[in-house]
């Protein structure tokens, strides 16, 4: 009886957790965690996407990102210098052995230039991360609300 209830709660908890983690993608030693994007205004030309790469193995390098959602996809980094926010292109991103790299607002991001359609909250679209060793890894980004800076699953965890 007790174990039955226990198992049921576990299954319920699992059912609740799965949709949030559905977008996680593991390839070999690399895990791409919870890719997300932000809704755009009608007619907006650009969007941005974020995720975290967790590497359980040897060093690898993210070479480029592809997506059918935009005509051009670039990797950029933003940083603030003397009150001015700057953005610069990044040609590749090293993922250290047994380390992680986070793409996030005001930092590394995927720049989706010339969107083929506006991004609406709840939409999903594919991103393919091309690594030097692991090769292409396809993930799905989930579109969050306009203006989101911290995805819902990280809220309350600080920045």
């Amino acid at each position, binding site marked *: 009886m007790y174990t039955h209830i226990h198992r049921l709660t576990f299954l319920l908890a699992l059912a609740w957790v799965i949709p949030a983690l559905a977008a996680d993608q593991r390839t070999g030693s690399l895990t791409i965690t919870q890719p997300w994007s932000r809704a755009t*205004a*009608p007619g*907006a030309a650009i969007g941005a996407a974020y995720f975290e790469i967790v590497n359980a193995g040897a060093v690898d390098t993210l070479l480029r990102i592809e997506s059918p959602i935009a005509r051009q996809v670039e990797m950029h980094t*933003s940083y603030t210098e003397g009150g001015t*926010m*700057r953005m610069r292109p990044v040609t590749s991103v090293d993922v250290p052995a047994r380390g992680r790299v986070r793409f996030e*607002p005001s930092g590394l*991001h995927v720049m989706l230039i010339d969107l083929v359609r506006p991004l609406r909250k709840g939409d999903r679209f594919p991103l393919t991360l091309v690594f030097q060793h692991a090769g292409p890894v396809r993930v799905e980004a989930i579109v969050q609300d306009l203006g989101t800076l911290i995805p819902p699953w990280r809220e309350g965890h600080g920045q």
Partner: protein
Amino acid sequence: MTTTHRRQLPKASLLALGAAGLVAGASIALFWPRPSEFRLTVLPPGPVSPDFRLVDFDGQPRSLADYRGQVVVIFFGYTRCPDACPAALFKLAQVMKRLGPASAQVRVLLITLDPERDTPQLLKSYVTAFDPRFVGLSGTTAQIDHAAASFYVAHFKAPTSNDYYAIDHSTATYVIDAQGQRRLIGAMNTSIDDFAHDLKLLAGRLKQGASP
């Protein structure tokens, strides 16, 4: 004789002490920073007055003087901005909701730093997606440079590839009072609460008959 002399000395020093105390008190009152009633950073009036001559997304010429009698909130940005601009506008939209009826005295303006790519239609669909009351302003490069300079806003074109450029820019939010004076400056991490608190204060004064 010696006793009177002894008695006068403390009297004189007491007087001197009192005078010194008065002077010290007065200078503390004059120069001690008064705790501000505002939560945002208070700006002293600068040598250059904030001003602009631009065109709104409906083609109407606009200057800052057109908004006299309203509390004006200004953000400089561009629609191809990855996260700073959407985050700032999204926050201001929530501030407007928080303000309730007081929001009628507040006008939020986005001045584009990218007049080449931000067409009036794009500017309109972009800013009104955050709040239908928001207004987008554009103009010639010279007009925008002039507007930005009067707010001490830095901005630079920064190509990221052959056919794309970003615009590096200040991410401050400026609050202009109903008299057209620069009053407050908000940052990316200024909370919705703090914005709403200060805008309510400025809008409240306006209702009490300070408006023209």
